[in-house]
């Protein structure tokens, strides 16, 4: 076994420290070592987007990163959307517009949506599709997901109008 390496990072506002094997992917670290199983393991080669998390604010595939590479990073996972159990407006919108069925892909879609709406509070349908193009859903169909993101944008603008930013 290769030498273990220390990893210190912040996930959803909380500091963590662990010793990991270099070959451990970030998604396996989040799930197996930190117990944050909201992030899903799908294809494990960067196609499906189910493992999408925010790395220093940017949506990345956590199956295509090593845990050791996240040393010093600030991460946000789907658990960070509803820290006190109250759903995030994006999560509410996915429920209201039926943006999920089995829910396996949902954490990835949610995190990609967080990045999109942070950078673009009023995305067009084309911009939504471009931002979510790296996430696969095999049951709901993308129409209701696009609708959910549109509704999420409305909800978030109402809470935090662009003029107040």
């Amino acid at each position, binding site marked *: *076994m*290769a*030498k273990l*390496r220390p990893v210190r990072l912040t996930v959803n506002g909380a500091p963590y420290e662990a010793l990991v*094997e*270099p*070959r451990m*992917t970030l998604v*396996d670290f989040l799930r197996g070592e930190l117990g944050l199983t909201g992030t899903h393991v799908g294809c*494990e*080669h*960067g196609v499906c*987007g189910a493992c*999408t998390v925010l*790395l220093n604010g*940017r*949506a*990345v*595939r956590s*199956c*295509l*990163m*090593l845990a*050791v*590479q996240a*040393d010093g990073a600030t991460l946000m996972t789907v658990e960070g959307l509803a820290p006190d159990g109250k759903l995030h407006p994006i999560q509410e919108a996915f429920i209201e517009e039926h943006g999920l069925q089995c829910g396996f892909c949902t954490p990835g879609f949610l995190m*990609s949506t967080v*990045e999109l709406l942070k950078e673009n509070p009023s995305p067009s349908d084309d911009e939504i599709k*471009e*931002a979510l*193009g*790296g996430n696969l859903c095999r049951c709901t169909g993308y129409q209701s997901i696009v609708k959910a993101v549109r509704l999420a944008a409305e909800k978030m603008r109402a809470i935090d109008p662009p003029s107040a930013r």
Partner: protein
Amino acid sequence: MKPPPFDYAAPTTMAEALSLLEEHEGEAKILAGGQSLMPLLNMRLARPGLLIDLNTLADLDYIREVDGGLAVGAMTRKRTVEDSALVKSRHPLLHAATLLIGHRQIRNRGTVGGSLAHADPAAEYPAVALALDAEVRAVGSNGSRTIRAADFFVSYLTTALAPTEVLAEVRFPRLAENTGWSVMEVARRHGDFAMAGVVATLALDAGRRCTDARIVLFGVGATPVRAQEAEQMLDGEAPGEKLFEDAGRMASEAIDEPLSDVHASAEYRRHLARVLTRRALAEAAMRAAGGH
């Protein structure tokens, strides 16, 4: 679908990275954005003894205007290129090609140097580099050398980099004022690797005749492929549908043996090369004439 065991090093200077590379020659692999290497590790198609991570070398992340074009540090993320006002204004071809690469999540992580050094023949940046006569700067412990794109892409996933060298920078020459450009591809889904694609540049001289054409096809061979005969037949001709149709046919015939796989047959790839070349030349001519 879990990577095999390997050691990992995160050097903080290039000198450190190079000495590790020399010490572990043949068993070390450079890790840049990881968007191609990590899948290879997860599927155990690659089994390096040591990964040398360049993500800790912050000074390889830059886009600078230099004489004649843009210098881009190897660890510059594709997302940085996508969002760069400098790239948008000075190099719209590079900007447009970047938008065709993978998805946003991939571009947030994947790097310019990684894409060139990985040398996937279906990737966009190698084709752009070849079309523009870009120059790659490789550094080794004995200093650095410049490699022209035409000499850099040797074969499938194989470049002219020595096992002890690191790609540090690429320089993309700017296009001349009278030159139009186009980058197009056909993929199964937007963001997938192209089944075939083309980068074309074309200038119009004072008499509105074609000159200095460049046609580079990608996704059709072991490396990006320049269609030199088709480029030459355009020289001195008035731009037009028939001319570009003929150039497209000639370009498609310039491909030795297009790849044939589950995504597309060789015949279909050749067809795409013909059609895409025709369309790209028409678009480049339109841009050269001042249209958008």
